[in-house]
């Protein structure tokens, strides 16, 4: 009956109720977006780093991966040593360089030299993966951006070159590459054209200086718990003094430190939206209670306990908030996607990086917080309504 009465009360002023629900929905959406933003970037970064299960990044001593032009010499020995460790499941060496593309609408592309079997940089979305063959024509995997800019399709052949002399229009080395597939490159910005070719081929193209070099490597620890990964990391740094090994956890910690201001901002905005939701419900319920002083006094007179009035009014607040939260959930997800689309266009961001990441646990927690806050927002007006001296309210009503 209480539910029927609460529903009926809210239906009494449909426009006002609808506006309040919309207001709460906006507050809920903002809160949800802020929670998604606050936790999303580090979660996105974590899942980005762990896309293919590699928990360790190995870069030249004192640098971060692709943070400089520096490369690691003696790559073969290092990779072999790491692969020999029983604690390491897989190692993927990577060499990055810029290569020219001959007779093409764009002069160059970023190239990644990878070992196809262990690579963790891309995922095939169309066509086939590249193979490490001894053929004259290389296999390659291109990003969507590269295909678009070249006006090429899967199966087309292009010519790549290194050491291009722009004046003489000559190159030191060139190779033909058949584009066997389209790849989604996790760590490279969407707007950057990328071509992946076998590591050995890229080393050869770059010349003798790069014969045994890599820009970085990714390693996967056999055991995935933090302590074991950290143990492997320590072992790598101890046995390979020329390199720096960074674990995903360390990288995330560093990112979180850099994003702390961002998170604080999200937290403050989230708290503000929570406050707005609270005030909205509180205002509306207070208004409704003030209008119904006589009605509430009559309810008390005919035998409704103080607790009953309290529950009744709080139920109205909770119902308003629930409706707003349900609507806000959808609104929050849609607006997060929209905002994510805008922010992802920011140049230089990895293709797989998201600002707003849906985390069911965080979302439910924040929406539950809003629900509790909505019910509490009804508490004060509910208490005031329940505490109305019945005789006085009836007298006032009779006079009024």
């Amino acid at each position, binding site marked *: 009956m*209480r539910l029927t*009465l609460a529903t009926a009360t809210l*239906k009494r002023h449909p426009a006002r109720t609808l506006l309040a629900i919309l207001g709460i929905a906006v507050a809920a959406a903002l809160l949800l977006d802020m929670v998604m933003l606050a936790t999303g970037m580090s979660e996105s970064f974590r899942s980005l780093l762990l896309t293919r299960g590699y928990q360790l990044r190995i870069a030249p001593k004192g640098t971060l991966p692709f943070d400089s032009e520096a490369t690691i010499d003696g790559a073969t020995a290092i990779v072999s040593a790491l692969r020999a460790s029983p604690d390491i499941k897989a190692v993927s060496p990577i060499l990055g360089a810029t290569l020219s593309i001959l007779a093409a609408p764009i002069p160059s592309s970023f190239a990644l030299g990878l070992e196809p079997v262990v690579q963790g940089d891309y995922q095939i979305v169309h066509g086939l993966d590249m193979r490490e063959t001894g053929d004259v024509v290389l296999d390659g995997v291109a990003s969507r951006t590269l295909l678009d800019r070249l006006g090429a399709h899967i199966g087309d052949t292009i010519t790549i070159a290194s050491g291009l002399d722009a004046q003489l229009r000559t190159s030191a080395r060139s190779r033909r590459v058949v584009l066997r597939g389209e790849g989604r490159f996790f760590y490279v910005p969407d707007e950057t054209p990328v071509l992946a070719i076998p590591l050995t081929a890229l080393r050869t193209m770059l010349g003798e200086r790069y014969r045994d070099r890599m820009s970085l490597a990714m390693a996967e620890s056999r055991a995935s718990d933090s302590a074991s990964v950290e143990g492997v990391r320590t072992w790598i740094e101890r046995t390979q003094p020329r390199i720096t090994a960074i674990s995903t956890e360390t990288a995330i910690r560093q990112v979180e430190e850099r994003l702390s201001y961002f998170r604080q901002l999200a937290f403050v905005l989230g708290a503000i939206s929570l406050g707005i939701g609270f005030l909205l419900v509180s205002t509306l319920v207070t208004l409704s209670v003030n209008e119904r002083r006589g*009605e509430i006094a009559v309810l008390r*007179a*005919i035998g409704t306990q103080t607790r009953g009035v309290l529950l009744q009014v709080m139920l109205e607040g909770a119902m308003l908030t629930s409706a707003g939260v349900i609507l806000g959930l959808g609104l929050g997800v849609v607006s997060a996607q929209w905002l994510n689309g805008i922010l992802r266009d920011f140049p230089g961001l990895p293709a797989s990086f998201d600002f707003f990441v849906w985390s069911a646990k965080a979302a439910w927690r924040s929406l539950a917080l809003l629900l509790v806050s909505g019910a509490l927002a009804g508490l004060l007006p509910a208490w005031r309504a329940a505490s109305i001296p019945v005789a006085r309210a*009836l007298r006032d009503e009779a006079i009024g």
Partner: protein
Amino acid sequence: MQPALPLIRCQDAVRTYPMGDAAVTAVRGVTLDIVRGEYVALTGPSGCGKSTLLHLLGAVDIPSSGLVSVNGRETSAMRDREATEFRLRHIGFVFQRFYLMPTLTAAENVELPMAEAGVARRVRRARALELLGYVGLGDRSSHRPTQLSGGEQQRVAIARALANAPSLLLADEPTGELDAETGVTLLELFARLNRDGTTLVFVTHDAVVASAAQRVVRLRDGRVVSDERNR
């Protein structure tokens, strides 16, 4: 033969309440007994304290001094929770402005006190329909108050007041918002209720309406000035 035990005993009841900076004494030492089965009108000019006295008799309010007991229980000794429970079980209220919940149907309005009393949904629905039938609104149970006339709304309010089979029915200016003809119909309903065993006390400033009761208690300035029985 033993005299009937009073259902209501009011002894030297005084009620003073603050109004702004001043204190207003609405009821000044009223002594009154009402026995079970009586049909009483409290009448007098506006501001004479009749509604305040009705609130005292209905355990809605307690006297500043003196004593009011209903069904053998002193209202001043009851805590708010007990008084509310007492009203729910033993007293039915009818108000001048009906005070029906506008978004509930007539039947749902009648069910309200029964829901508070924890009566099962099916039982209370059946009783609500029975009571609406008793007050002549059997065919209006699913109508909302706005779809009913003033007289019909007041009859729904009476059905609501009777929901938990109270031993006492109190009405504050029950005909105040009704036209003369509808007022007469309502008084006929009250008379029928009384004949069926309900003790009834109502407040009115209208001497003609008051004359419908078996006993008329006149108040002036918070005091009883006459207490007469109609033939």
